Every structure is written in structure tokens, then in C-alpha cells.
């Protein structure tokens, strides 16, 4: 429970970056996103980004001294995460500004830079946890799962938003299904590598699967997958309710998975 701020921060930041990249991508493809919708999504991402930053501060003993966290950027992945995510949030504000001003060119440029930095931020974030001291974290699956969270939640967030605004012109479920399939593979690889790993990794796997949360997480994952597959096959029923529902289910699912990620981390 003590890592709860980090659970929320990582999920939110990955959602925000995923959503941002999606919005930027759709906007670049000259999809018909109205200025108002674009602005609203952009603002909502900025707000979520700001919330995630504030929540991440709660994890610190001295939140008001958080500014120092960028000092060790040469060595520390946490420093890099803080720096890049900070820059990303800053740029997303600028990006929002260009939505307001409706300057598509600058929007595209800033959005592109911000997206790249966002990706680096997620990479840095994952690298923080890939440490030998915690065998359950110390693998590339951590990196995959962080990016997959972004890929699962980001597009759906934007998709649900656009569906609500009745402006959804792309079938989002395809991306989401692909992400979920990857996530399932990563999950399988993850647990089998834990089982074959150090005693602390085996213990982490045991703890994870022995919690009810794990089964809720699995259930939500399967349900979301089923709904999305159904949507994918029946393009006509893509509507705001379904996307909102799937987004909420997957948000819960990812949240639970991340919660377990922290809670069952057994130190050497």
C-alpha cells in the first residue's frame, strides 16, 4: 500500500503518454478531429498529467524538494524519468496551446517531439525497476508491460472520447486487441520466467497468484478482450458506451496488475 502513489503515477503517466501519442497521430493523419474535441482531449491529458505529477510527489518524504530529483540525470533512471516526463507534460501544455490557437503545423511538430520524449520517459520509468535487487522486476517484461499499459489505455481513452463526441473515424479496437494479445504473451513469459528464476522471483509469482486481485485482474482482462473482439468483428456497434466501458474495465485491470507488481516485489 505504501507504493500506491507510484501505482497511480505509473498507470496515469502511461495512459497520458499513450493518449497523447494517439491524439497526435490521429491529428497528423488529418482525421476529422474538431478543434474543440482536440482541445478537450489535450486539456484532459494535461490535467491527468498534472494529477499524476502531484500524486507522484506523495511518494516522497519531502515533496517540496522534488525539484532536486533531476540532479542525477547522468546516472539515475529515476532522474531521467522525472526530467523527461516533466518535459513531456510541459510540451503537452504547449501542444494544447496550439490546439487553442488551432495551429496545426506547430501542433504536429511539438506533438511529435513530445511523443518521442514521452516514449523516452516510459523507457526511463521501466529502467528504474529493472534492478537485480528485485528479481521479479529485473527483466525486459517490465519494459514491455509499461509500454503495453500505454498502448492499451492511451488509444482507448482517446477513442472513447471521440466516440462520445461522435467523431471516431478509425477502428480503435484493432490496436487494443493487438496490445492485449501482446500483453497476454508478456504475462505468460513473465510468470514462466519468474518460476524459473531466483527464489525471490518464485515467491513473487506465488504471492501474486495467491491474491484474489490476480484473478479479478485476469477476469477483467478476458472480459475486455471479449468485448473488443466482438466490436472488431461488428464494426457497426462501436459506440461510446462500449468504449467507455472497456476503457474503465481495462483501467481497473491495469491498475490491479500494477498494484500487484509493487506489492509482491520480493527484495533479495
Amino acid at each position, binding site marked *: 500500500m505504501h507504493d500506491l502513489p507510484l501505482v497511480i503515477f505509473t498507470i496515469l503517466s502511461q495512459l497520458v503518454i499513450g493518449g497523447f501519442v494517439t491524439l497526435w497521430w490521429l491529428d497528423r493523419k488529418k482525421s476529422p478531429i474538431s478543434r474543440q474535441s482536440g482541445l478537450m482531449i489535450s486539456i484532459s491529458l494535461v490535467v491527468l498529467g498534472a494529477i499524476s505529477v502531484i500524486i507522484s510527489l506523495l511518494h516522497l*518524504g519531502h515533496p517540496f524538494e522534488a525539484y*532536486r530529483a533531476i540532479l542525477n540525470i547522468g546516472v*539515475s533512471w529515476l532522474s531521467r524519468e522525472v526530467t523527461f516526463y516533466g518535459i513531456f507534460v510541459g510540451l503537452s501544455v504547449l501542444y494544447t496551446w496550439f490546439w487553442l490557437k488551432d495551429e496545426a503545423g506547430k501542433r504536429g511538430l511539438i506533438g511529435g517531439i513530445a511523443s518521442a520524449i514521452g516514449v523516452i520517459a516510459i523507457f526511463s520509468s521501466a529502467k528504474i525497476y529493472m534492478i537485480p*535487487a528485485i528479481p521479479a522486476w529485473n527483466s525486459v517484461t517490465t519494459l514491455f508491460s509499461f509500454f503495453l499499459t500505454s498502448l492499451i489505455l492511451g488509444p482507448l481513452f482517446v477513442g472513447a472520447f471521440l466516440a462520445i463526441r461522435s467523431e471516431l473515424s478509425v477502428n480503435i479496437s484493432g490496436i487494443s486487441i493487438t496490445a492485449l494479445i501482446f500483453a497476454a504473451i508478456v504475462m505468460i513469459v513473465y510468470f514462466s520466467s519468474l518460476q524459473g528464476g531466483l527464489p525471490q522471483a518464485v515467491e513473487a509469482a506465488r504471492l501474486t497468484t495467491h491474491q484474489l486481485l490476480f484473478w479479478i485482474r485476469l477476469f477483467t482482462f478476458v472480459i475486455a478482450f471479449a468485448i473488443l473482439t466482438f466490436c472488431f468483428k461488428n464494426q457497426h456497434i462501436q459506440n461510446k458506451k462500449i468504449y467507455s466501458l472497456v476503457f474503465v474495465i481495462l483501467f481497473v485491470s491495469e491498475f490491479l496488475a500494477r498494484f500487484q507488481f509493487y506489492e509482491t516485489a520480493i527484495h*533479495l
Partner: protein
Amino acid sequence: MAKKLGFLVNIERCIGCHACEISCKSFYQLEPNMRRRRVTELPENLVGTPVRAFVSTACNHCDEPACKKACPVGAYTKREDGIVVHDQNMCIGCQMCGKACPYGVPQYNPVKKKMDKCSMCYDRLDEGQLPICVEKCPLEAIQIVDYNEVQPSNAVSVVPTFADPSITHPTTHFILPKPGKQTRRF
């Protein structure tokens, strides 16, 4: 040549009494649950014949300290003599060092809301005194050794319960107990 100071823990002498740990807690007036030095029970079959064996560890002042790499504010420095020092004034209490250290050495001080760890009493060393745990061990089982000068032939770099030294290259070394003769009824 720079020094490479590290603890040499003589398990043969150690009686597992925890005086090192408590004298450290007392000297630095740590919070009741904080342990800069920890005494850990070793498996009974450590030397063959069953015995009660313990190992006392603190910060291992590693050659490649994971804490130093993890810290976002750069609160950790490794001195020329090898001591890894944590600057509490810099620390913002993110606790990442505690996670990254394979030995779980840095601990959160719930009152100061900052991390805390063994400093090998570097200020005492600088004044020509021994670290408190070294000075106060009733059995004189803990020493400070400059491993650049001497590699004690009877010392080993790992014991059960001690994480793989290849991760951070801790300087702590151990002298294993010698098995005694036993006549047991069972």
C-alpha cells in the same frame, strides 16, 4: 593508491548478540525500528556440525553502489577511501535507493522522512576513531580492512543470506567459523 575500506566480519567469533546493532542505534539515536547494522541468523548446517551462527552486516560500501545509481538527487558519494556516504540534507525521501540496494541497506527514517544508512562512521574514522560497531563488539568480531592493501586469505565474499556480490561488488568480507567436534545424543 586509494584505499578500499570494508568491513571484515569474523563469524567464527560472532556470538550473534546484536550489541553492534544496538550500540549503533544508541550512538546515532536512531528511531526504534531503524537498523543501520543487522545481525542475521545463518543456516544451522553452515559448517557441517549443527551450530548457532550469525552474521552481522551493515552497508557494504560497494565498489559499484546501486544506491548511488538509483538516487535521483545524487545524495550518494563514494569517497576516495571507498566509503559510500549518503547526504541526508540532499535526500528527498524517494526511497529508490532502498529498493535498488541488493542488501536493502538504506532505510526510511519515518521521522525525518529521509533515507538513512551506515556511514562506516566516517567522521569518527576521520578523527582516528573506529566505527562504533567495531569498537563496541564484545567479541571484537568486526574489523575495518583496507582491501587494497590486504586480502585476508581466510576471508570469503559471500555467505548464505548475503546477496550475490557480483551485482554491486560489496567490500564486506567474512571469516567463516571452523567446525568443532561434537558428541550428540541424536
